[in-house]
């Protein structure tokens, strides 16, 4: 579903490339942890997938689409095929929980009746059906992240990108978010999650891609965060 073929990303005014000849394949339905220190290239990799950046060399393919060749005009439509969750939740502050989740459908012009049907169902799934008329500022961090997950998943994307989704949450809350991500993955959605969270990675036992200085230093099925023996 996703392939990086010898991809290098060199930002302007920097000596070392952010991504250095990366080759990586991810199949439909995979759950991949992207681990590594800050600056190791995790974010650059996600940005390439979103076409927020374009690779300096090499080919990035998502669902059969060569991302580099995508016209600017087509980028919004391309992004709608994936769901995105961020560390800082990125909810629209002036909108209620319901409207935040509905927003993902509003921007693609879904009819009101469909929105009225799907949003409450999804809010129930993430356990926030009671709070649909609250504003994001009235929610806890874990609740906000569940709203963000609901928004990311509202159009049933085939791919869900999560950039340190538990980075601002306490361990107990993080477990709840991971359960949701696991559930989304189990119905066939590809999930790529960049994280530092050792406990979560070790607990989930999923595929691990570890990065260091822009290179992939480990790609292991059912891995643990630390190196073998640690």
């Amino acid at each position, binding site marked *: 579903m996703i392939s990086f073929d010898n991809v290098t990303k060199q930002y302007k005014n920097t000596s070392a490339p952010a991504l250095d000849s990366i080759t990586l394949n991810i199949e439909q339905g995979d759950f991949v942890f992207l681990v590594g220190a800050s600056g190791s290239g995790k974010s650059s990799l996600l940005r390439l997938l*979103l076409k927020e950046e374009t690779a300096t060399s090499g080919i990035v393919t998502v669902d059969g689409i060569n991302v580099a060749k995508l016209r600017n*005009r087509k*980028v*919004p*439509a*391309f*992004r*709608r*095929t994936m769901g*995105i969750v*961020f560390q800082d939740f*990125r*909810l*629209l*502050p*002036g909108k209620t929980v319901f409207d935040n989740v509905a*927003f*993902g459908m*509003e*921007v*693609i*012009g879904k*009819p*009101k009746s469909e929105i009225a049907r799907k949003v409450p169902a999804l809010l129930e799934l993430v356990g926030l059906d009671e709070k649909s008329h609250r504003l994001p500022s009235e929610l806890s961090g874990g609740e906000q992240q569940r709203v963000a997950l609901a*928004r990311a998943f509202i159009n049933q994307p085939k791919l869900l990108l999560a950039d340190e989704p538990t980075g601002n949450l306490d361990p107990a809350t993080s477990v709840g978010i991971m359960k949701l991500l696991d559930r989304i993955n189990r119905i066939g959605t590809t999930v790529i999650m960049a994280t530092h969270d050792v406990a979560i990675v070790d607990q989930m036992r999923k595929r691990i891609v570890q990065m260091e200085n822009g290179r992939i230093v480990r790609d292991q099925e059912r891995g643990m965060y630390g190196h073998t023996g640690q």
Partner: protein
Amino acid sequence: MIMRFSFIRREVGNGIRRNFTMTVALIVSVAVSLALVGAALLMRAQVDRMKGYWYDKIEVSIFLCGNTSVAFTCTGTVTDSQRNNIEAVLGSLAPTVQEIFYESSQDAYEKFQEQFAGSAILANISPDALPESFRVKLDDPANFEKVASALQSVQGVESIQDQRQLLDRFFQILKGLQSFAVAVAIAMLFVTVLLVMNTIRVSAFARRRETSIKRSVGASNISIRLPFILEAVVAAVIGSALASAGILAAKYWVIDARLAPNLTFIPFITWEQVLAIVPVLFLAGVGITVIASSITLRRYLRG
């Protein structure tokens, strides 16, 4: 891509409410600058109308020699044969010369008496002091030179006067005023453009987080930019409406109620002419804001 109307309306309404003071400033600025544009257009229409009206009535006066004339074409009072010759020359200038009237000293004196009735000046003027003349109507007032060159060295002609020159001096003043109004209008429009750009920039900055979120959720450029543009357009429409109301009020309360009854010899612009300016103002107001806001958004909401 289709977006539901109610969704856009809500987004625009929220934006205006949050940016209220800037929106008010924008409305006032659009209203003032467009009112000036409207005033300049009205003045041009007024000048054109007066030109058409008065040029139609303009005559060329050919004053004939009297006993005190000193022009080199004069040898005392004009003789009958000289007068007949002048009339013949005028007649040969058809079709440039369309009508010829003769005005004797006595006619001129009677006219003078009428104009200066009750004035002390009358006592000092005798019919002899006023020269006899031919009054000539031209097919086009601009053809004055033709008549002048044909007559300036003919015996018995003292001087030739083009009434248009008198009028033109007056029109020049009006034109000066008009250029001033245009200059002020252009300056105001420029200020309006800057104000639109600044308003958009401020609201784009205030909503940059929201915008980046929308973008990452896959909102298209148009759906991100449209609320901003529509906010500016709403302000422009209100401003244009105020400016239009202003010029209509000027026609009703100033021209029709005050000027026209007192200055009956001036033909004033009609309601049709005033109403024709209204759509121009709306088009200019909305057009300028759409262009200015699109350019600004392209710069500040890149993606």
